[in-house]
């Protein structure tokens, strides 16, 4: 877990917005620093590349044990416990309709935050932090239909690869976690 964290930190250092270099001091900040570059954590789910905004990511962890919760949606692996914090852990491949994958050695849990609560997203591999300028972003193409489209906030292009930017609010919609239980009428 610490390795990934270091990577993140390195990535932050590389951005140039937050950290000034020796060069900057020498040349009096002449170097143009792009303020509009957005940073994303890019990862792989099945054969597709996804990313979420770096602000949403709290931590990247190795897989940990989860406790299955009965009467919940199939995409929920269960609840996990990271340093005393209990969080739902989602099988992202399942959630995105990419089938159930066996998690390999590269699999990681992205711990993201929504509404002050942590959630775990299991992905097959974390690429790292990418910076995507707005001009490389596309609106969600209308041609992609179905429920999957709701999870897509935008499409980004990074080094000629297409990265799907996830709409976390949709992916983590609370109502989807607990299917309406059939014994639920009346109460």
């Amino acid at each position, binding site marked *: 877990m610490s390795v990934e964290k270091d990577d993140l930190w390195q990535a932050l250092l590389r951005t140039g917005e937050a950290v000034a270099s020796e060069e900057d001091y020498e040349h009096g900040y002449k170097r143009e620093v792009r303020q509009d570059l957005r940073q994303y954590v890019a990862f792989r789910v099945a054969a597709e590349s996804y990313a979420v905004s770096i602000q949403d990511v709290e931590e990247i962890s190795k897989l*940990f*044990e*989860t*406790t*299955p*919760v*009965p*009467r*919940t949606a199939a995409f*929920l692996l269960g*609840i*996990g*416990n990271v*340093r*005393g914090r*209990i*969080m*739902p852990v989602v099988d992202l491949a399942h959630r995105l309709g990419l089938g159930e994958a066996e998690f390999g050695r590269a699999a990681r849990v992205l711990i993201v935050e929504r*509404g002050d*609560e942590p*959630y775990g997203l299991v992905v097959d591999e974390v690429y790292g932090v990418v910076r995507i300028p707005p001009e490389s972003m596309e609106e969600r193409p209308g041609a992609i239909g179905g429920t999957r489209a709701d999870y897509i906030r935008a499409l980004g292009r990074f080094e000629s690869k297409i990265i799907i930017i996830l709409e976390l609010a949709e992916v*983590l919609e*609370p109502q989807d*976690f*607990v299917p309406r*239980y059939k*014994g*639920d009428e*009346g*109460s």
Partner: protein
Amino acid sequence: MDANSTEFIGEAQEVIETFSRHLFELEAQSRSGATDPDLLNASFRAIHSLKGLAGLFGAAAVGDLSHSLEGTLDALRLGKIDLSREVLDVMFEAVELFGRLLDPKESARAAETGLPSLIIRLTELVDAAGGPKQKKGDDLAFIGETILVQLSEYEEHRLRENVRLGRNLFRIHAAFDILLIDKGIEALKEKLKVHGEVITYLPSVDGFSDDSIELDIIVGTTDDYRAISALLADDNVSIHQLTPTGEAAPQERPPPPSRPTIVEPTPERTEVVGVIDTDEPQDDAREDVGGGEVSLRSLSQTVRVDLRRLDVLMNLVGELGVVQTNLGGVLEQLRALEASADVARDLTVQIRDMTRKLALLQQGILDVRMVPIGQVFDKLARVVRKLGRELDKEIRLSISGEETVLDKLIVEELSDPLMHMIRNCIDHGIEPTEERVAMGKPQAGRVELRAFQRGNRVVIEVDDDGRGIDWQKIRDVAIKRQLVTAEEVAGMGAHEIINMIFAPGFSTRDQASAVSGRGVGMDVVKTNIAKLSGMIDVATEVGRGTRFSITLPVTLAIIQALVIQSAGHTFCIPLNSVLESIMVETREIATVEGHEVITLRGKTLPLLHLSRLFALKARGRVGPMQRVYVVVVGLAQHRVGLVVDELLGQQDVVIKPLGSALRSVPGIAGATELGANRTVLLLDVGRLVDEGVQHADAQLGLIRR
């Protein structure tokens, strides 16, 4: 510092509650004819410090009211006025008004509307009594002028009371070593208090030497000279009996000099006018005479802590528990290494020590959250008193177990349900006086509030000797209100029908009275109790009375859980909703129309298979079993048997919420850690029982209990 600060409100409330408690005791004592002067003094002191407190925080209204009340109490203390029912009424009203004055939302209105009139009434009580009722010295001349002039007004009043009661008066002359005088006086006083009242102690007129002080102690007692001499035989004292002048023998009662009323102990009636009387010894008359000094010190050595802060601490302790378990794992690894055997041994000792201290820490934090249930009982006692008056019913309330402690949160949540129950009990349960008399019952209705601890639960009972609940009447009303159909009712037992009083929208009164009967009462009670993971039960007998019992966990932050396993999955069940766990041979399980049941002590118990209920995928080897465990759980008035594979034991667990995404999973209440980072789900027993009951109802209309 301002009058709305939580510090002031909290502390003032504490004082007022103490005062209210004193009032009730005084009322009870006045009924039996003998009030404890100590109690009056304590009340006086309480209000006196409230006045000081109000001054300190600039709470003018509270200050004014306590000032007037203090005047009344002083007059009572000095015997200028009697502790009549009217006086008690006004003082109880003052308690209510204090409550409103302290409520930031109510305060302004209360100060405007209620305050002036009450102050006038308090003042009138004192004015009506006029000045001191007796001239000094006349009948007390036998005490001796030298002593008499030194007596304060209060001491003189106590002396007079003792004379009036025909007690023997003794002057005990004692010499104390100047260095040990504190302890000496205390010891002597303790001894004398058991036998009578220490009215005063004065430096002896006989003078004193350099290294000793001589004191005269005046004692009033029913014992005679011989008994007192025997009592003090070991002490270096001389004893003189003070006999009233003339022929008046000590045994003879001088006529009560100026009392308009006479003690008449008729404990059946609340209307009896009490007279200040003494039975118990006087603690320390000197210290509260005058009462001009306002102490700036807080009354109690307490701090107020936000419950949420305690929750944080509690969580930390829970996490420490996990760390401790992990340390155990490290220890195991260390043990496996030969080279580190010594270190492993040391670590074992340290971990054991830590475990013990951790348990103490956890208990300590829990204890901090605990408050006596008496806080609620005091409020209820006021409700009873007020209701009895409004409905013109005589009520004798008896309270026991007020010292039983419960989590602060639970105590707070409990006051409303209990109030509903008390209201119902007085409004519906207790018959009007004439009806009671006609039935040969005591005129005054009896209501009992009891609290006691049973295992790790607290039981609260509300018991009355009223008319009881008629199940046939309940049945008819339930059908009329369309809560059930006549066919459904046919299959129900009496107990089950009576339980329908907890159904939403049920009320037996056709007209809602001002007090209760809006048909929300018992429904609200049930929901609130269930929310606290408690149970409510009702036992009733027509014509004899009704008893409601509420069973509650002692705390909610940390609970004792039964750890069970089903299909290889581990769950926790709150132990407070577990009634018993039994082992059942599979062949004992019968089916009624496809629904599994067992017979437990003659009653049919519907079974719920946890593995089926939760559609658990079997983990590990789970073969067909010859016997299963049935955990009998109950919430509110229902009972259901949960079928599980294994009982893994009991454990204290810290409950953690599941977050907004999983909050609404039916049947799951939360999660907890069971060491080694293992997360285990906590069952929502209430929900599961409801499901089980609905199931059973839908299929067979089974007996619920």
